[in-house]
């Protein structure tokens, strides 16, 4: 009996080790290592410790692209938030059965292929696409103006594709909020605005933060959306990385990835600490 215990435990322990190794350590270590390699035109990279790739990133050319990409990501995040928050608030007030239906409908598109959804947006935005025709009908778009292959098209695509990633954390968070708090506030004479600003918004901040992280990160790295909808006029960080790798400048691409990973690792470990302090406060 003792042998079988150790065997199962050993299985679990090794699974845990393999998982951490494949999911976290391997990507982090290889990227850091590759970003410190030196670029040589005959070889993708030569193992050598140098910060040449990072210095290259500080050139004005790259800085401009990076700043623009981050701007694009922020715009997408804010737009997603502005669309998703009112929707989830409305869904939250529906009866349970309808809530389940709408939540399912929100989660469903997240599971279908991002590429296929981008392609479907392409069909809406092309010269005789539905959205282009509608915008022309209300004269928001000139008769000879096109929507496809512009910054706006990329933005529409990004918001459309990433909206579920914002909806899901916010709605999960809103469902956890105790509605008796709002009733109590109403009984004590708070107006609708006060109830929203002082109770609902602060309580839903964790969901908003998680949603923003989940939208912002893909929004700066999904390279095929600007490729398909922006017609190579818009560059995201993902495009920079992809270009660096197809040009054989592997250290540069790896350095960009590391720049992308540093804030991720930092931000995504942040909410957890917060959560822990809340929990310990509850126990006391």
């Amino acid at each position, binding site marked *: 009996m003792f042998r079988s215990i150790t065997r199962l435990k050993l299985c679990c322990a090794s699974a845990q080790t393999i998982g951490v190794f494949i*999911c976290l350590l391997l990507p982090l270590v290889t990227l850091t290592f590759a970003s410190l390699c030196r670029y040589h035109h005959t070889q993708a990279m030569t193992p050598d410790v140098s910060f040449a790739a990072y210095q290259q990133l500080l050139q004005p050319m790259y800085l401009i692209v990076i700043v623009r990409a981050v701007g694009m990501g922020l715009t997408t995040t804010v737009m997603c938030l502005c669309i998703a928050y009112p929707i989830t608030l409305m869904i939250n007030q529906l009866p349970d059965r309808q809530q389940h239906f709408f939540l399912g409908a929100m989660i469903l598109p997240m599971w*279908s292929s991002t590429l296929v959804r981008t392609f479907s947006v392409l069909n809406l935005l092309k010269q005789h696409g539905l959205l282009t025709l509608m915008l022309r009908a209300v004269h928001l778009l000139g008769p000879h103006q096109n929507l496809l292959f512009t910054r706006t098209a990329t933005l529409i695509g990004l918001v459309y594709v990433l909206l579920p990633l914002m909806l899901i954390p916010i709605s999960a968070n809103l469902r956890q909020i105790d509605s008796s708090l709002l009733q109590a506030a109403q009984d004590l004479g708070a107006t609708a605005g006060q109830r929203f600003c002082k109770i609902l918004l602060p309580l839903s901040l964790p969901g908003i933060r998680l949603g923003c992280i989940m939208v912002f990160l893909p929004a700066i790295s999904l390279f095929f959306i600007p490729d398909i909808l922006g017609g190579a006029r818009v560059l995201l960080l993902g495009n920079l990385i992809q270009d660096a790798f197809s040009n054989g400048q592997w250290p540069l691409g790896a350095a960009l990835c590391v720049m992308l990973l540093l804030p991720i690792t930092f931000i*995504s470990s942040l909410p957890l600490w917060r959560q822990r302090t809340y929990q310990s406060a509850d126990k006391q």
Partner: protein
Amino acid sequence: MPHRGGHIGKAPHGSGFVRSLLTKLLAFSVAVCNVILAPCIACARKLYRLPGRHLSHQSYLIAMAFPDIVLGISFLIVFHFAEWPLGFPALFMGHLALTLPVSVLLNTHQFKNIPAQLWHAAQDLGASDGQGFMWVMIPLLKPSIIAAALISWVFSFDDAIISFFLSSATFQTLPVYILGLIKSGVTPMLNAVSSLILCLTAALSVLAYRIMSKRYE
């Protein structure tokens, strides 16, 4: 506008299409690997409380936030340095890194619905560790295991970015093939393939959602 109608019948004859259907095999093996690994990892954290479980949990939360492109590139670099050819093994590793965090978190979450006494009761009644795992834990974890399998299958089947970096000339996945098609111009066949994929993933997702929401009843 050539060949209006009958695109679906025409689609499988496109070159590379049949080969890219092998993706199914890839997604299937990724799902199987998830089914084996994820419950073990969840048990390591919740059942045995092994050392390093917090680090492991934290690392899955961080890995969930990794953009696909980072995973694709890091495995590209690994295979480049090891001088292994790209293709099935590289894609398998990349997709495993993509899907494992999700299925581990699903399985760990399922533990919230399982009373810890059941495990101890089984041991008190004389079940060995292996028996307790097989006949108590696995049936209790069944909804999350099935949901994790379906999700990892869908994620692996749909993934375009990791596959873009890791496919070889001879082993290409369906989304990579589609990406190439989109860049070369929209054809009716593309519409047909896309709608087929949408229907397939939608059906699987509804199934997984049903299975996962059952436990609330």
